[in-house]
């Protein structure tokens, strides 16, 4: 598959010049970075809302920007579904009218038709269709903004912090909508986020942006555990993201198979057998044992091998503001799992257990400290 997206731009910002070059054929791309790294500016440049970008932007074979040849397509001729952080709903229209704002373009664009009724259904907005947008909650506003973007016949969805500033329970409620949209409507999407977990769950490729420059690029589950990137990803708590399928479900617990032979027991949250799920395990919640532990209430014990031990960095280190300094990060390879798991322990624990690369360990985790997200 040839690249459908090419972004090669330079954009002078207040504190630095944003400079990215990025070509991809993947359907779901993440742009990750701390706030102020220039993430939103990239989206605005792609949407055509920000002037001053020099370079080239090509989407699906169409040139949206080519400053060398003097081509700058106006935003209305680009075909993006842009969902900004603050939703930006039209205050003079109700929910349905907002969602249909771009339907004229959708009819003429020749893009695969997305039925507004289906969008209302998928986003669970049917009962809100005649509500005035001023009365909507934060989560509802985001869903309406998503619906409006989807119904405009976009060639590309641009989602700016789709879960940002929502509290955790609300995040857990909106995330499935995003996954559902991806499955149901299959529009190429760029997600901007400063949370590694979101990017890992939603994207297959991530560009890490730091002060306007690419700091790393690749598969999220590999990029975020990279030594240089991990300090950014762990701000607010690093979560290991695992995918699997529910193979057993009872009233109190469900069993998720990650790989043949590797299973996790999670607290039941209404899962049903056969469901594809994502399991999130915080690095802080994983306990390490050098001998096979017995007589524990914790439901999960996974045997693995230490691949790497990262001592706390002295001085700047760039470690998150959550008091992560002084913590040792232990990278453990478990069975045939595709991704290594990260556990954080104190330097003292690391010394007492004499943890070293190549050593055998057991990862212990309570069913209750695993968060499960259904992807379907």
């Amino acid at each position, binding site marked *: 598959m040839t690249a459908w997206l090419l972004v090669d731009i330079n954009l002078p910002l207040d504190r630095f010049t944003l400079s990215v070059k990025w070509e991809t054929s993947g359907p779901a791309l993440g742009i990750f970075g701390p706030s102020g790294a220039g993430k939103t500016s990239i989206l605005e440049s792609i*949407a*055509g*809302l920000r002037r001053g970008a020099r370079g080239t932007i090509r989407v699906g074979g169409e040139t949206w920007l080519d400053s060398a040849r003097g081509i700058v397509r*106006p*935003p*209305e001729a*680009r*075909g*993006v*579904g*842009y969902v*900004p952080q603050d939703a*930006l709903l*039209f*205050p*003079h229209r109700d929910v349905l009218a907002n969602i249909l*704002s*771009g339907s*004229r*373009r*959708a009819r003429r*664009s020749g893009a695969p038709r997305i039925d507004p009724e289906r969008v209302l259904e998928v986003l669970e907005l049917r009962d809100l269709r005649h509500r*005035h947008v*001023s009365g909507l909650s934060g989560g509802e506003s985001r869903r309406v903004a998503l619906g*409006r973007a989807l119904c*405009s*016949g976009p060639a590309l969805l641009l989602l700016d912090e789709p879960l940002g500033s929502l509290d955790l329970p609300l995040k857990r409620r909106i995330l499935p909508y995003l996954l559902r949209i991806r499955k149901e409507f299959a529009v190429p999407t760029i997600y901007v986020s400063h949370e590694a977990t979101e990017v890992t769950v939603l994207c297959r490729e991530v560009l890490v942006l730091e002060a306007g420059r690419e700091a790393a690029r690749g598969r999220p589950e590999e990029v975020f555990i990279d030594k240089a990137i991990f300090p950014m990803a762990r701000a607010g708590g690093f979560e290991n993201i695992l995918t699997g399928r529910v193979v057993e479900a009872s009233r109190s617990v469900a069993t998720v198979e990650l790989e043949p032979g590797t299973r996790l027991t999670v607290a039941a949250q209404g899962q049903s057998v056969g469901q594809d799920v994502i399991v999130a395990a915080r690095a802080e919640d994983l306990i390490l044992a050098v001998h096979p532990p017995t007589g524990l209430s914790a439901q999960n014990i996974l045997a693995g091998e230490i691949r790497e031990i990262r001592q706390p960095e002295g001085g700047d280190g760039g470690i998150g503001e959550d008091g992560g300094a002084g913590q040792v990060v232990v990278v453990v390879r478990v069975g045939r799992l595709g991704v290594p798991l990260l556990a954080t322990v104190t330097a003292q624990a690391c010394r007492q257990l004499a943890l070293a690369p190549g050593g055998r360990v057991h990862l212990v985790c309570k069913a209750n400290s695993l968060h499960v997200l259904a992807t379907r």
Partner: protein
Amino acid sequence: MSPLLISLKVACWVTVLILPPGVLLGLLLARGGFRGKSLIETAATLPLVLPPTAVGYLLLRLLGRYGPLGEPSLGFDLDLLFTWKGAVLASGVMALPLVVRTARVAFEEVDPRLEGMARTLGLGRVRTFVEVTLPLARRGLLAAAILGFSRALGEFGATVIVAGSIPGRTQTLALAIFNDMQIGHDDEAMALVAVTVALAFAAVFTVEILLRKRPDLA
């Protein structure tokens, strides 16, 4: 025609005629970044601060027999002086700044990002203006119209110079009050004052309601 009817007729025409250029100028000043913006801004405000008689006199000289808009220069007679149309012109010039300023504020309160959002949804500049900017600014624009109307209703100085004070033809409420007072018809003057107060109150009250901040129309 009674002074009230003449006043209403003049004020209605003023509103209709100055609203389009007033709104356009307001939009230009609110959104445009261009050279000479401050100059236009100042020029558009001048009638608000100049003595109305000065504006009236300028118009008189412009339209007079030997002015650039007089019959000999144009080749035909605009027939504005000492007619109700002259009153429309004079009070229109006086009311324009108020319309421009109010329209400008109305447009400035529309978040430009909402307009940008509309563009990304495939709406061109014109559609965006019609479907997003105008509806969001509508209350401010309505207020601008009413303020322009009220200003025209109360205009005296410029009108008397350009249109004179011909009873039944160009004598508006404001002019009639002065006239009645001059000739000692105090009761009639008072009655006319009462009418103007009622009209002005209704207009300004409506504007207040329109411009009151409503949380849903931020």
